[in-house]
């Protein structure tokens, strides 16, 4: 059974590692295991997150100021492994995995039972370029992004590379957390879903309400909610937010 093939429309929650503190992050991570959601995406804080909007940038800055390090995150995930029943995805930037060492990074992911990896600035071509240098062939699959503007043949090509994970559909070609009308592109989302065949398509960037979630669910396999959840965490209202969504 592939970890991202659910028999219902899925919900994934994104949170930034060590935000707002290491302890609170652990609480949030454990709390999410009890919620009516399907998978968790952990963002690795980075100094120069070019694909992220202001909310996630700010959480990264706080986490870095808290002394975040990649190896400490792996140590923590190893420790918590028995308590993490829901599939966990890691999202970061290419420089972090390259500095850690592609091979070492993938091995730590396997050990921590990470189910998929997202590196938005490592597009398919560049990833292949770096993977080619590793000798240990990792089983941890990568997730790739597509946008409504991605060409059809490229979507089909990307979907093939995501057979064991999912396609991350960026709802609107913009940085994370922006607002836009999903209605305007429902047909395009549906067409993308068709192009991806059996590979699950999850829509993210800008999902902040039950209405938008329902709209996205009407044409894709699931949603990923990041900025809106982190904004709620910042305000101490994450329980309320999760119930409302």
């Amino acid at each position, binding site marked *: 059974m592939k970890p991202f093939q659910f028999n219902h429309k899925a919900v994934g929650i994104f949170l930034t590692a060590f935000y707002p503190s290491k302890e609170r992050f652990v609480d949030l991570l454990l709390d999410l295991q009890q919620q009516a959601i399907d998978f968790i995406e952990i963002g690795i804080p980075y100094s120069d997150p070019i694909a992220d909007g202001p909310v996630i940038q700010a959480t990264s800055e706080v986490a870095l100021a808290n002394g975040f390090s990649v190896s400490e995150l792996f140590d923590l995930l190893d420790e918590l492994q028995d308590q993490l029943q829901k599939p966990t995805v890691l999202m970061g930037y290419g420089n972090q995995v390259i500095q850690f060492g592609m091979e070492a990074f993938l091995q730590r992911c396997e050990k921590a039972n990470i189910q998929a990896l997202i590196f938005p600035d490592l597009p398919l071509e*560049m990833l292949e370029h770096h993977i080619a240098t590793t000798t240990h062939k990792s089983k941890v699959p990568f997730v790739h992004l597509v946008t409504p503007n991605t060409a059809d043949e490229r979507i089909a090509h990307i979907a093939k590379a995501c057979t064991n994970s999912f396609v991350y559909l960026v709802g609107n070609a913009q940085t994370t957390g922006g607002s836009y009308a999903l209605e305007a592109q429902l047909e395009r989302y549906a067409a993308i879903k068709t192009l991806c065949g059996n590979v699950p398509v999850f829509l993210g960037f800008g999902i902040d309400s039950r209405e938008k979630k329902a709209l996205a669910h009407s044409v894709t396999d699931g949603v990923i909610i990041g900025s809106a959840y982190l904004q709620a965490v910042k305000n101490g209202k994450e329980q309320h937010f999760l119930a409302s969504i």
Partner: protein
Amino acid sequence: MKTFSHRPNDRGFYGEFGGAYIPELLHNNVEELKVAFETICHEATFNQAYTDLLKQFVGRPTPLYFAPQLSKKHHTNIFLKREDLCHTGAHKINNTIGQALLAKRMGKTTIVAETGAGQHGVATATVCALMNLNCIVFMGEKDIERQAPNVARMKLLGAEVLPASSGSKTLKDATNEALRFWINHPETYYLIGSVVGPHPYPAMVAHFQAVISEEIKVQLQAQTGNSQPTAILACVGGGSNAAGAFYHYFEAENVRLIAVEAAGEGLHSGKSAATSLLGTPGILHGSFSLVMQTNDGQVVEPHSISAGLDYHGIGPLHAHAIQSKRAETIAITDEEALEAVKTCSRLEGIIPALESAHALAALNQLNFKPEDVVVVNLSGRGDKDMNTYMNHFDL
């Protein structure tokens, strides 16, 4: 030894460095640009328009000036390539003219750019005024405070200057903001100012700066009877002026190419910008190159008194040239650069920019023979740095 090539492969790699490390959101933008660069920039009509503007608007060719007093001081033959005489005061405009012409041909109406000290911002605002393009320049909040005259120049030229208030509020954050702006407004043209960024930017900026060494070759031939000097010195932040000054000499292996980096307060002071000496391979602003970073892959803030060299990366072409030993590196401290400003001003009657002063200061660390011919690329003039000079020299 295999001949060094200054051209990237079809994926934009110079050896192991380069490439296009961009989110899928920028895929179409970068592809569109790649095609435009490969076709339009090699058309005769485009080149004619570019060359005409360089001549009539920028004031090219810039002189290759034999500097008698500096030559005497260093017991060799020193020529200064006078990029400081370009309109707007530095070589930066060679590139902005080329890219703005390209943007026009691509049907773009709005240009977005990043700037550190404001030199590239001013060069961009200038060509946007010239070509009737909307201009948006991102500048770190801290730099906006530090470089008020350049902010005013950009505004006078009609540009909108937007503060980058994320991260360290300097050049790297201005670049991040410009990239995000480009993601959110794909209809705009992103005009990068150095030989950095995703492919095809490093190749394109080098292409437009190559005019520097093209002229040096002709001028040296006329003045010395030999188009090949012993060595060429140029300062390197991202590396655009060095790429231009080295360009036509990369394959002439007997010509020493010397990249001069900013050591800041000292190479090992923790306040330095000498990326090729202190950096490790990593991804920055869309390309794989040498980056100053922590062991955990977080980018660290560089330091140099010269805003134009205060960058924690280096263009992939230079990373490759340095790693494959085609180019040498020398690191110059803030103090040494300031001393060179004084020397050049007093001996030659030329007040250099702080960036260019790093290249001049490197002469003190090199021993040339009396018959050698050394070209120093004087990338910019010192007007913009007068505040620093006034404070430092107590003028």
